[in-house]
């Protein structure tokens, strides 16, 4: 139980995917303009991460032990088709959820956070439970970073920023400061 809690916090704040490991930067820079969209993107990401974690565990346990060199190709195919299936199922089951997540789901296929989760999970030999906790933790971390970024950007919109720094440069400065703040969590790891 203890190591599950540790995995959860480590993946959520200490080794935050976006701010510490630079994974999933495209949505972080692209769709972090509004808090609401950021929340939905975070939710969609977490959902796909959990599904991926499940699929990767099945792949690793039953199939890839026979052909380890196919790892990367198998992961990317499974993730791409999984996202497609999830999209179809959600569309059938819940129109409201589909409308909320709809446009973000296809984008997630090429999000490096998803493939990275699969690779980390394999490299660290996580069990099913550990993998799922890891997926929820990292999804939560992604959502946290997205929402923090969106709320800062919403306030900065009213500020008088020099024309030169507007756009991506400003977002990167904010991201750097957030990353700096998250470095404070590193202490949790060594003491815990």
């Amino acid at each position, binding site marked *: 139980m203890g190591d599950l809690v540790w995995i959860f916090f480590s993946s959520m704040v200490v080794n935050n995917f976006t*701010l*510490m*490991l*630079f*994974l*999933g*930067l*495209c949505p972080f*820079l692209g769709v972090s303009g509004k808090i609401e969209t950021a929340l939905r993107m975070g939710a969609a990401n977490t959902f796909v991460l959990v599904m991926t974690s499940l699929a990767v565990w099945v792949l690793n346990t039953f199939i890839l032990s026979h052909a380890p*060199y196919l790892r*990367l*190709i198998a992961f*990317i*195919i499974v993730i*791409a088709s999984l996202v497609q299936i999830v999209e179809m199922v959600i569309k059938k089951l819940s129109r409201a959820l589909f409308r909320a997540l709809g446009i973000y789901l296809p984008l997630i296929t*090429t*999000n*490096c956070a998803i*493939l*990275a989760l699969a*690779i*980390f999970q394999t*490299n660290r030999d996580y069990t099913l439970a550990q993998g799922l906790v890891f997926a929820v933790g990292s999804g939560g971390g992604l959502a946290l970073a997205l929402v923090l970024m969106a709320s800062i950007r919403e306030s900065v919109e009213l500020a008088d920023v020099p024309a*030169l*720094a507007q*756009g*991506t*440069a*400003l977002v*990167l*400065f904010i*991201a*750097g*400061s957030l*990353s*700096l703040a998250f*470095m404070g969590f590193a202490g949790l790891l060594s003491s815990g």
Partner: protein
Amino acid sequence: MSQEMSPPPPHPAAHGADGLAERRRAVPPNVDLVKGVWRENPVLIQLLGLCPTLAVTNSVANSVVMGIATFFVLVGSSLLVSTFRRRIPNEVRIATYILIIATFVTIAEFALQALVPGIYKALGPFVALIVVNCIILGRQEAFAGRNPVGRSVLDAVGMGAGFMIALLIMGSVREILGSGTFLGVSLFGPRYEPWVIMVLPPGGFFTLAFVLLTISWWKRRQPALAKAAEPRGLVVAERAA
């Protein structure tokens, strides 16, 4: 690696059957090659592939190895995709592209593991993550899938070089400031106090922000200078696109 991949400049006769390509041959080969290096630089101008740009550039050696690996994958997939562009059904083209890219990444991963195990370890998951680098898929979709082999490879070489240049800029700034070294060679002597923050994650964000600021300042200064001497090559490229 780069030498054996780069083809001879495309010859008009080589694509005689390709009517469309023949008309487009008006584009001089150097335009395809050069645009990726600066004017359409994938990282600094198009802002694609930011994850590896920020994650692996804490030293020059890592940046160079990552740049070479991505270059190899990009040129190899462009070569293959443009060769088979008429046989790939339109509905499954993205899946096919990803499969081709994943194959080349697997090759690159094993090669790095064998040749430079230390750096391979430092790069961590980011070698495998070349698969989802948007620069590579973007070039297949936007260029290699609809252009002849020669032009696609030139385009890939240019874009790959542009990516390498961006990584090298980031890597140099971060290693020089963050460790006081360049490729491991000490620059300022023992009295230099390194800015450790530059090799840590926040340093990546700040360095890229400053690089982008410099570029936008440079571009803003540019129109006045450019108006005097509008390069003709760019106009040709625009018409072809």
